[in-house]
C-alpha cells in the first residue's frame, strides 16, 4: 500500500520541479530556431526565484478573491499531478477523480483567474477575462470530446484505466485516436495560451489574453501564477503523452518500471517541446475572431474521432 503513495508524491514533485525546466527547454529550442543565444534551460527557475524575493504590490481595491486566486490556481494545478499517470498507472487518487474531474480542476482555476482579472477593475483585466472565457467556453467541450474518444476505446473515464488499456493492452491502429490527437493538439495550444492563439511573450497590453488577466499581479502572487502556468503546459504535455503516447509508462505494481518510465518521459517531453516550437515559429498569432473557427475545427476533429470509433472499430 505504501508504494502507490510514494508514486503519487514522486509525480507531484516531478510536476513542481520539471515544469519550469520544460518551459526552459521550449524557450531554449525557440532561441536556437530564431538564431539567438538562449539563457539556458534553468532561466524559468531564476525567474520564479526572483519573483518570490520581490514584494507584492496590491491595488487598494483588491478583494480577497484577488489575493486568494494565486494559491487556489497553484493548488488546483498541483492536485492534477495526482490523477494523471506521469510515471505509473498505479495511482490511488485516480479512483476518486477521473478525467472529468481534471477538466473541472482546470475550470476552477480559470474561473478564479478570470474573477481576479476583473476584481481590480482595470480595463485590461476585464478584457483579458472576457477573451479567456470566450476561448474556454469553446475549448472545454472540445477537450471533453477528444478525451471521451479515448474513453470509448478504454471503456472508462479514469485516466489510469485509459492509459493501462492503451499502453499495456494489445496494439491496434485506431483512426479515432488520430483524430482525437489532432483535436487535442489544437486545444492544448488554445488552453495553454501559446501561438497562434495567444502570445506568451508579448508586452502589448491590447493583444493579450492570459497575460491581461494577471497584469496586476506581482511578487509571490505572480510567481505562483507563473509557476502554475508552467505546470499547466506540463500537464497538457503529460496528458497528451498519457492519452496518445503512453508506451513506457510503468504498469501496476511494477516498481522496476519507474526509472525507464522516467527516461521515456524525458524523451517524449523533449520531442513535444520541439514540435511546439516548430508550430510557434512557423505561425503568426491569429486574429482573435479566428479563434472560434480554430476551436470549432478542434471540436470537429474530436467528433470525427468519436464517429470513426463507432464506424470503424
Amino acid at each position: 500500500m505504501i508504494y502507490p503513495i510514494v508514486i503519487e508524491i514522486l509525480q507531484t514533485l516531478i510536476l513542481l520541479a520539471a515544469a519550469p525546466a520544460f518551459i526552459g527547454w521550449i524557450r531554449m529550442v525557440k532561441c536556437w530556431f530564431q538564431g539567438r543565444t538562449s539563457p539556458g534551460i534553468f532561466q524559468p527557475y531564476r525567474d520564479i526565484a526572483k519573483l518570490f524575493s520581490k514584494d507584492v504590490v496590491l491595488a487598494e481595491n483588491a478583494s480577497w478573491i484577488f489575493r486568494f486566486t494565486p494559491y487556489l490556481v497553484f493548488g488546483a494545478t498541483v492536485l492534477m499531478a495526482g490523477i494523471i499517470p506521469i510515471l505509473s498507472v498505479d495511482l490511488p487518487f485516480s479512483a476518486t477523480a477521473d478525467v472529468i474531474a481534471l477538466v473541472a480542476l482546470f475550470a476552477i482555476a480559470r474561473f478564479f483567474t478570470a474573477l481576479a482579472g476583473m476584481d481590480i477593475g482595470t480595463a485590461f483585466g476585464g478584457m483579458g477575462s472576457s477573451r479567456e472565457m470566450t476561448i474556454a467556453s469553446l475549448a472545454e467541450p472540445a477537450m471533453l470530446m477528444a478525451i471521451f474518444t479515448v474513453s470509448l476505446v478504454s471503456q472508462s473515464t479514469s485516466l489510469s484505466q485509459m492509459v493501462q488499456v492503451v499502453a499495456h493492452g494489445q496494439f491496434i491502429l485506431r483512426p479515432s485516436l488520430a483524430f482525437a490527437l489532432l483535436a487535442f493538439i489544437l486545444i492544448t495550444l488554445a488552453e495553454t495560451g501559446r501561438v497562434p492563439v495567444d502570445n506568451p511573450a508579448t508586452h502589448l497590453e491590447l493583444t493579450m489574453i492570459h497575460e491581461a488577466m494577471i497584469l496586476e499581479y506581482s511578487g509571490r502572487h505572480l510567481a505562483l501564477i507563473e509557476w502554475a502556468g508552467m505546470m499547466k503546459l506540463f500537464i497538457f504535455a503529460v496528458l497528451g503523452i498519457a492519452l496518445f503516447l503512453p508506451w513506457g509508462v510503468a504498469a501496476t505494481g511494477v516498481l522496476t518500471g519507474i526509472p525507464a518510465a522516467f527516461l521515456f518521459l524525458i524523451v517524449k517531453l523533449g520531442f513535444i517541446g520541439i514540435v511546439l516550437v516548430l508550430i510557434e515559429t512557423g505561425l503568426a498569432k491569429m486574429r482573435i475572431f479566428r479563434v472560434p473557427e480554430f476551436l470549432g475545427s478542434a471540436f470537429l476533429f474530436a467528433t470525427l474521432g468519436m464517429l470513426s470509433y463507432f464506424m470503424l472499430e
Partner: protein
Amino acid sequence: MTILQNIVISILEEVAIQDANQYPANVPTYQIPRERFAEIAKVMKTAGARLVAEWATDETLHPHHPLPHQGGGGRGMGFGIYACYAKDSEYLIIKTYTPLEDPTFPSLVKKFVPAYRFERQMKSLMGVVPVGHPDPRPWIKHEDWPEDAYPLRKSFDASKPIPRVAGEYRFIKAEGEGVYEIPVGPVHAGIIEPGHFRFQAVGEDIINLEEKLGYVHKGIEKRFETLSWEDGAKLAGRVSGDTTVAHALAYCRAVETMTECTPPERALWLRALMLERERIANHLGDIGAICNDVAFAFLLYQFSILKEKLLRTNLKLFAHRLMMDKIILGGVAVDISPDAKNGILTEMDWLVNEFERLVIIYDENPSLEDRVRDAGILSPDTAKGLCVVGFVARASWQPIDCRLQNPFPPYDIIVPRVAVLKSGDVHARVWVRIEEIRESIRIIREILNSLPEGEIACKFILPSPDIAGFAVVEGWRGEVVYWLQSGPRGEINRCMIRDPSSVNWIALEQAIHGNIVPDFPLCNKSFNQSYSGNDL
C-alpha cells in the same frame, strides 16, 4: 512649377506682397491680410494642394517695419501666422499678422484636417487663437500648466519652473449599452515612448480612438532660440533620435538657404549616403517589429540582426551608430576612406542576399499574411484629406517623396524609383518599405560608385539678421520640414520643426476605424510615428 503661386497672385491681385527680402529664397512667401487667411486655404484646397504645416512666430520684439499700403501693419506688431502648402514639387508659404492685443486668426480646420492639431498647438504654446476651431482643448501643452503660460512667446522665461494647476482633459465620450472605455498608456508594458490612447469599444470593435500626446514635450523649439546656429544642428539631430540624420540635414539645409552657402559636392553625396543608411536601418527594424506584433518573432530577430550589422558598420565608419552629429552646417563632419567605400559595397551585397531571403519568408507565410492584409486600412481619399506624408502616404496612393519632387544632389542624378501602393493596409505599408530598402541599397551603390572627390565641408557664414530659411528632406518616416528665422541680432529667432509624425498621427486614428482592439498594436506599429518628433 508655379501653379499655386499663380493662383495666389490672381486671387489677391494688389494686396499680395512677395517679401523676397526676408523670406526663404527657395520658397515663395506671400504676406496677406488676416481676414483673407482662410480664403487662401480654400483656393489651395481647390487647387489640390496639401497643408504642410501651420505655425506662429513671436515678432513683438522685432524692429517696426511699416507696410505702406496697409497703413503700417508690418513686422514688430505682434505674431506672425504662417501656413505652408505644397502641390507636387511646389511649396508656398502664406503669412499673416495678428496683433498682440487681439491675437486671433481665422482657423483653417474646415479646409484642412491637419490644421486641427497645428492650430491647437499654436494656441497652447504661442497663445494665438484660431477663430472657428471646434476644439478648445490644449495640444502638446499639458492641462496642468496654467492656461496663460505660452512657452513660445518671447516674454516667457523658460528657465523658471512652471506652477502646476488643476486641469482636466476631456476625452470624447461614447455612450450606449455595452460601450466601454480602454485607457492605454502613457506608460506601456513595453519599452516604447509615452503616449496615451483612449479607445471607445463595443466588445472587441473599436468605435473611436483618441490619441493624447505631449508626454515628451521638452521645449525643443524654444531651446533653439537660445543656441548658436552651429549648436542648432546638434539639437536638430536630437529631435527624434531614430531620424537624427534627416532632422540634422533638414536643419542644415534650411540654414544654408539663408546664407547661400553651398556645401561641396562630396559632402552632399555623403549626406545622401547617411540618409539612405538611416532609412534602411529603420525600415529593417520596423518590418521585424511588425512581424513580432503578430507573434512571428522569427523575423524580428532575423531583421534585427541585419539592422544591428548596419549600425555597427555605422559605428566603425562614422564613429556613431546612428550617425548623430555627423551632418554639420556647410557639409559633413566625417569622410569615408576608399577602404570604407569597398566595405559598404560588400555589406550591401551581403544585405541584399539576406534581406531577399527574409522577404520571401514574409511574403509566403499565410498566417502572417492573414494578419497584415486588410488591417488598418487608410484609404487613398482619407490619406489625401489628412495630408499625410512619407511611407504612410505612399502606401495609400499618394506619390509624395521629397527626394523626387525637391531633389538636392545627388538625387537629381540618382533618381529614386518611388513605390506607391493603393491598398493602404498594414501589408501595403510594409511592402512600400521593403521596396524602399531595395531602392536605398541601389542608391547607396550608385553614390559610392560615383562619389565625387573634394572637400567635405565649406566654411560656414552666419546668416544675416531678419531673414528666413526653409528646407524639406525625405527622412525614413517622410517629409521633415524646417523653417528658420533669424532675429534682429542675427540669432535664431524661431525654428519651426515639422516631423512627419505631426501629420501622420491623425491618420492612425482614422485607419483604426472598423478594426478590433487586439489589432491596434499591429496597426500602430505599421505607422510607427515618433512621439518625440511630434511633441517637440
